[in-house]
Every structure is written in structure tokens, then in C-alpha cells.
């Protein structure tokens, strides 16, 4: 199997107040140019020989901001370089209420088999505060539309710990969300990022995040409610019915390489992590000159690769298996992390079964503390590897 593929569509009809991904207001001509350049970029990396990745993921921005013609051209490009019929999971991100039946038909026609809906919260007031383009009703209509066309592998994204959000409020959203009984849900705590409207409001003291206690309470509640409804917690922010885990996201956590195409996209190829030029016109310029639109590329050292294997792997409920680790690196992770594993086990943050370690729910609450423990001490690393 070839490496997974991520494609970024940076256009949006409205910019959300919390978003710090590469994005810009939709503009038809610019989107046309962009799609041409996306094709050029894929050619530079893939060439004439089609690849057969296990997963494709179109993210944004908002992929559904494209009109039908553009969406079709995007799908054509994908089929030009990829054997989509051999792809196990082909996801597109979509905004409720932003697309019509025509979009859905195209998705079906070109092999999309999973739709991830950016729902965020089920309350019109809150949606407005986030500057989302849709309302609660749009969500119902969109789910209906997709299901009518047999696109039933639907996921919903939520954000919690929103400004002035109470635990009760989040519970209402969760209950409504679970009423859809979809196979997959994601939920992220709001992160206030630089260069966003929320960040500015936060700096000015006009935005009030819930207390850390409440945020923790929300996460406990979320885990509990998902589990009770048969959506098992397979990664820190992801819940799914058996067999419906997002294969694409799992490639990230399994520390595997992946292609990334599009402005501001992050990829991992030939032992290097890279990020593309973020402003769309810079991205376009590079490709029009026949160059790869890479802003920055970093070789991942063996030490970093091992650290990432651990702190990404531990995000998955199943954690990290020593057998796989040994096969990849030729030594046991106990050789490197014996002391840390013992310390974290004693704290009750991880379980060590002798050949596998994984987070407990308590440990998940303090995930960053656990992950940081797997950054290697320079001296120890040299000792083991000399």
C-alpha cells in the first residue's frame, strides 16, 4: 500500500473566529487557479504512475466551499493520480447547509465513502458566536441529504469548553448529537490560537473560557456518554463504533508517512516532515514556476522518530506495542523508557502490560504530561545508541 494522502482546500465562505488553519475567503478565479496548481503539485510528487493509498482525506478550510464544477475538477485530479477504487477510506470535510444534492452526487460518483461534518455545537446562539455559517436546522437537513444518497459513514466534529459554555450546555449538545446515532464523533476542547478573532478578544479580556475544573468535567462527561452509547474512545479526541475508526487519522498516530497537498498542508515523506507555503498566492507562484511549494522541511532524526512513535502512539487507546516498536527500531522501548514507564504506571496514568503500554482515563486527562515524559534525555539516548 502507498502512503496516505491529505489534500487541503483553504477556501471558506465565512471565517470562524477560532480557526488558525490556512484559509481565506472563497474567490472563484483564485479557486480555479488553485485547483490547477494542486494538480501540478500532485504531478511533481507522484508523476505518471498512479498510487494506491489506503486513505484519502480532503480537509480545509472548507472543501464544500467549492462549486460543483470545481469539486468535480478536484475529484478528476485525484483520480488522475490515485487508484481510488483501491482506497479503503476516502473522507471529505463538509459544512452543514453549504452544499446541494449536486455536491453529494459528485461525492458518490467519485468514490467518497466518508463525510466529516463540522458541526461544532448544536445551538444557534453559539454557532453565531463562533461565526459559523450554518444553523442547527442545516445539520438535520444535511445528515438527511447524505443518508438519502447512501453516504451513511458520517462523522461529526464538535468543539467544547467554548466561551461561557456551561457543563449543562455541552451535555445538551452531546445528547442531540448522539440522537443522530452516527458511527463516528470527534470532540476537541477549544484552543485559543494566535491570529484569531478569539485570541484578540481573549487578550482584551472580553472572552471568558470555562474554568479548568469545568473543562475537565466536560471531558469526563463526554467520555462517559460516548461509551454508554457504544461509541468507543479510540483516540484522545475520537469516538467510533467498532470498525468505523478513522483510518486516515490513525496513520498520523501510527507515525507513518503521508503525502500532503495544498497551501499550508503538513506532510511527512522520506523521513522528513514538511509544511507547504501558506498564503495561496505564494503557493500558486511556486507551482507556476514548476517548484514544489514547500516552505520548510525538517529531517526527522532517529531520536525524534522514536519520541514521536511514543507520544503519537499513546494518543490511541491501544497505546504502543513493544513488538511493533522492536520491529521498527531494533530494541525494546523498555530499554529507553524503563524509568518513565515505571513512574507513570505508579501515578496511575498508564497501564503497562509487559509488552504494551496505554493511557488510563486519568492519564488521558494529563496527556501532555505523559507525552512530554517520552522526550528523550540526550545523554540516555546516546548511551543506549552508542
Amino acid at each position, binding site marked *: 500500500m502507498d502512503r496516505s494522502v491529505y489534500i487541503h482546500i483553504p477556501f471558506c465562505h465565512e471565517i470562524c473566529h477560532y480557526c488558525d488553519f490556512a484559509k481565506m475567503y472563497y474567490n472563484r478565479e483564485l479557486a480555479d487557479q488553485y485547483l490547477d496548481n494542486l494538480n501540478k503539485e500532485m504531478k511533481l510528487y507522484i508523476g505518471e504512475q498512479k498510487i494506491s493509498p489506503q486513505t484519502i482525506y480532503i480537509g480545509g478550510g472548507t472543501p464544500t466551499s467549492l462549486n460543483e464544477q470545481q469539486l468535480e475538477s478536484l475529484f478528476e485530479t485525484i483520480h488522475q493520480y490515485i487508484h481510488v477504487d483501491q482506497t479503503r477510506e476516502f473522507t471529505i470535510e463538509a459544512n452543514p447547509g453549504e452544499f446541494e444534492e449536486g455536491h453529494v452526487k459528485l461525492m458518490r460518483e467519485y468514490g467518497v465513502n466518508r463525510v466529516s461534518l463540522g458541526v461544532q455545537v448544536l445551538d444557534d446562539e453559539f454557532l453565531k458566536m463562533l461565526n459559523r455559517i450554518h444553523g442547527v436546522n442545516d445539520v438535520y437537513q444535511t445528515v438527511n441529504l447524505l443518508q438519502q444518497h447512501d453516504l451513511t459513514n458520517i462523522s461529526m466534529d464538535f468543539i467544547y469548553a467554548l466561551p461561557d459554555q456551561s457543563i449543562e450546555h455541552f451535555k445538551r449538545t452531546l445528547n442531540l448529537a448522539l440522537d443522530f446515532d452516527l458511527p463516528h464523533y470527534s470532540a476537541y476542547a477549544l484552543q485559543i490560537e494566535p491570529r484569531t478573532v478569539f485570541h484578540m478578544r481573549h487578550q482584551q479580556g472580553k472572552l471568558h473560557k470555562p474554568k479548568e475544573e469545568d473543562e475537565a468535567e466536560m471531558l469526563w462527561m463526554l467520555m462517559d456518554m460516548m461509551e454508554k452509547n457504544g461509541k468507543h474512545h479510540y483516540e484522545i479526541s475520537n469516538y467510533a463504533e467498532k470498525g468505523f475508526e478513522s483510518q486516515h487519522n490513525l496513520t498520523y498516530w501510527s507515525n507513518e508517512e503521508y503525502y500532503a497537498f495544498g497551501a499550508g498542508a503538513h506532510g511527512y515523506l522520506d523521513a522528513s516532515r514538511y509544511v507547504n507555503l501558506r498564503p495561496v498566492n505564494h503557493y500558486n507562484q511556486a507551482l507556476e514556476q514548476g517548484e514544489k511549494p514547500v516552505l520548510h522541511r525538517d529531517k526527522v532524526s532517529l531520536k525524534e522518530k522514536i519520541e514521536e512513535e511514543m507520544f503519537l502512539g499513546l494518543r490511541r487507546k491501544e497505546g504502543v506495542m513493544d513488538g511493533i516498536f522492536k520491529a521498527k527500531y531494533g530494541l525494546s522501548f523498555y530499554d529507553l523508557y524503563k524509568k518513565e514507564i515505571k513512574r507513570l504506571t505508579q501515578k496511575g496514568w498508564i497501564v503497562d502490560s509487559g509488552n504494551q503500554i496505554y493511557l488510563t482515563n486519568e492519564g488521558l486527562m494529563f496527556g*501532555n504530561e505523559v507525552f512530554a515524559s517520552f522526550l528523550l534525555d540526550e545523554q540516555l539516548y546516546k548511551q543506549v545508541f552508542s
Partner: protein
Amino acid sequence: MAIKKENVRNFSIIAHIDHGKSTLADRILEKTKALTDREMKEQFLDAMDLERERGITIKLNAVQLKYGANNGDDYLFHLIDTPGHVDFTYEVSRSLAACEGALLVVDAAQGIEAQTLANVYLALDNDLEIIPVINKIDLPGADVERVKQEIEDVIGIDADDAILASAKDGVGIDEILERIVTDIPAPSGKSENPTKALIFDSLYDSYRGVIAYICVKEGSLKVGDEIKMMQTDKTFQVSDLGVFTPNPVSKEELTVGDVGFLTASIKNVGDSRVGDTITLAKQPAEEPLPGYKRLNPMVYCGLFPVESDNYNDLREALERLELNDSSLQYEAETSQALGFGFRCGFLGLLHMEIIQERIEREFNIELITTAPSVIYEVELTTDEVINIENPSLMPEGKNVKEVREPFVQATIMVPSDFIGPVMEICEKKRGNYVDMQYLDEHRVNIVYDIPLSEIVYDFFDQLKSQTKGYASFDYELSGYRASNLVKMDILLNGETIDALSFIVHRDFAFHRGKQIAEKLKDLIPRQQFEVPVQATIGNKVIARSTIKAMRKNVLSKCYGGDISRKRKLLEKQKEGKKRMKMVGKVEIPQEAFMSVLEMNDD
């Protein structure tokens, strides 16, 4: 050397920060062709990075210049730079001792500032000829007549023939050079007398050993001479002599009036003390030159390396700095909270900051600094009197008869609009009114007797903000007085953190205790468990707060495959932990140890 001793002029420049001393020095260097244009970088004398950044002169520098005067003779000038800030009075007195005259530079718009005044008095004490220069006459706010009047009223010297200059535009520079020739006397020593050379600064070079900056007051020195240090009686052979033009240039001989450098394979820093007199071993002078007005440290704080492995490096750094800054004092200190470090004494707060920054920058040692403290005199019930410079060592109340604290006479010069706010601050800081004089219609000199500890606390900041930066300020120790002082301890998770103890007036204790408990609650990050913060006097808790337990720390966001960002976040978290000190079970960030200082009284 073709130039006669009679044609030598040694002088320095006295000016307040920002009144244009460095620019003036540069113009003088240009006019005397000391530097080629290529070498001429802005403000040549301020060589240390730190000085350039802060716009102040810390270390002295001496430059030799040749000047062809209007009378047809060639003259040799030595320009000896002086620091402008009050904390460096010691260094100023050192450089003034090497001179016969001084240019007093006053800003035409701002007039005389308190710190300038202190240095002018030092110069007058040293019997120097003073040439007033009114600078920045090009400024729109310039008021030459008022400034002249002020120089006469405040300093008591004749300002009629003050030079009007604009160093920026090169105005008045020629007149300054001529007046140096005509007004400042030549050095008075005689070349045939037994040699006396004053060491006014020194630095250490790993190849050449100590490099002493000297001013030859009597007789002469030659390469190869056997010299003797009059304080230590140690002898050395001169290996190199020279002057700064401003680049160092070696000479065979330095004679009366010369200012330059000397090396003599002096390996031990202590053998070449600043202020000592060098003479010849064969024909020694009978009396050394008078030393300097020695200043004692007024402010103390603990310096601890963040990495305990750096303790020895820190000691070496302090040894190096002490070499040309004998006002810096230090001794080993052990803190339960911070481990091994040093208790250091400084002339003032700026001096303290500069030393800390130099250690961090020049020696690459990360420091944790405890809040500054003054020296308290404690009379015990046994009638014994001890000095306490570390608050955590204050004896228990039942053994103490009386605690005395240092007071300073603070002179605040301020536009008359601000009399009210300034007096309010002084009163709030437990000050006693001493005097108030109008310097002219617009400006007053307010004198208060204030406990030094209040000045150390946040006096500067308050004065600045309440007077919109117009106040200038100087202080000198006025003596010790009994005060109702108590030691306040801070407990985290039930354990006393010695490095956080401080001494406070009983009347303010409750308020300060409450403030610091609140402040620490915000500064110390949440831990895995709840941490009570208590402020206590004796065993009595007077304020408390609680650092809540951490409940959640996990990044759920996906970042669309941006793993580097996740990594950076984790690395930052780990790095942050490293910079914290683990005391008992609690991790304390560096800022917490300074928190006693930085509180807003609102």
C-alpha cells in the same frame, strides 16, 4: 614623545543619562582625528553591548587624543569616561581621581538632574576644574538662560561663559576643545619624582593576565621596570605599556600625566587592586596616592544557578566581575529551596540588574534571583548586635531587643506640578519630610528621609509613573533607625520556603502578606495536587490562598497532521519544567522568587 607634560590635559565628562555625553565624546573623537571614518561607529566609548542597549555607560574607558590648538601647540588629551548613574558613584570617583578637569554637560531643555548633581559634587571634592556645557541648544524646548541660572544657583559655579553646544549638529565642539586647553590645568606631578601610578580600572585577559588601566601621577614607567604594588607589596616586571587612541597602542614609556594600560604577567586578580598605587621597586615612593571614596553595598540578593551544576561557573563569573568592580561583594549561601548559590551585595538596584544581566549574557549562566533586601541591624536580648542581610536568617522575635533598618536621604527633583504626588509617595513609603527648595519657578528639590527597603521595593516605579517620568532621584545612606519590623515567611504546601522570606514593617505586614499570597497563587502553575500558600509571622498565619490542583492538560486538537507543532508544545512544557525549582513536592517557577518585589499597590 614630542609633547611636553605642560600640554597634557586629563578630563572626563559628567552628564545625566540621555543628556548627550556619548554623542559629545564621539564629536570630540572625530575633531581630534582619533578615529578614521571606517572605525567610527556611533558612540565609540560605550563598548559593552549592555551599555549600548541601555544607553548608559557602565565601565570606564580612557582614550588618548592629539589636538592641534589655536595657539599653534599640539596637546595630548586623555578623555576618561564616567558612568552617569548614581549606582556607579564609586566608578565615577575612580575616574575623576585620574583627571584635572571635567566637562559638565547639561541638557538645555531639561536642566540639571539629581544624579548629575551628585557627580558634580564628587568632582568638586576632587578639586577638578569644571567647564559647563549646555547641550542640545537646537531643541525646541531649549532655555539656555534658565539652565545657566540653575547651574549658578544649584552648583554655585559661574555659568556666564558656559559653552553652548549641540553635539548632534557639531555646534560648539571647537570651543570645547579650546577651553580644555585654556581652562584645565596640566597634571601637577613631576617626572623626576619617585613614580606613582594610580590603577583606576583593570580587566583580565587569559593570555596576558591582568591589564591595569593606569594614570601616571608622578615619575614614569618603562617596559622592563620592576614595579611594586603599594598595598600588597608584590613586585612584577612590566611587560607592556601603552595608550588607547582609542585602539590600544604600545609605548616604551609612560610618564607624568599619561593615561593608559600596563601588563606585567599578573596572574592573580587580587594582586592588582583598583585604587592601588604602582611604584618602582628600586626607588619606591614613600606615600601611596589617596585611595578612593569606598562605597559599601546597600542592597543584597541571593543569586543561584538554575542548573546546580553551574555553581562553580557562577563563582568564577563573580570573581571575574569583582576584578574591576570592587563594589561587588559576594559570599557563599545555601538555601533549602534553591541549593548552593551566593548572597551578593550591590551599590543599588541598577547595579544589581547589570551584574545579573552580565552573568547571564557574558558567562551564559541562567540565574534565579531572590528579592533584594537591605542590611538590618539586630540587637539581641544578649545586647549583642548582628547584621542581617538575608531575611531568612532573622532571629526569632523573643531573642530580639530591637531591629534597626537603614534610612536614606532621598533627593527628588521634580517639576512643581508634581509636589503633591511625590510627597504622597514618600509618606506612603514611611518617609520623614526633611526639606523642600524651589530651584526656580518651575522646579523643586524635595528631600525625604526614607527607609532604604522601601526604595528597593517599588519606589522607582511609583515615582516614575506618578510624575510621568519627570522626577529625577538620588539618595545616600543617612543612618540606621529602629523600626517595628517583622519577618514574614511563606509556606507552600506546609513547608517554609526560605528564599521567599522577607522583612516588612508591622503596619504593612497584613496587606503585603495578602498580596503575596494572591500573587504566588497566580504565578505558580497548577500542580498535581492542591497547594496551600500561607504567609506567616512567627507561627501565626496572616494570609492564605490555594493553588488548585491541575485537572486537565491534554491537547486534543488535531492540527491536521502538524506533528511539529505538537512536538514544540511538549518540548516547551518540558523546558519550562527544567527552569522550575522543585521544592519539596512543589515546582516553583523563577518569577515567583522575585514576586515579593513586583506588586501593585491597588
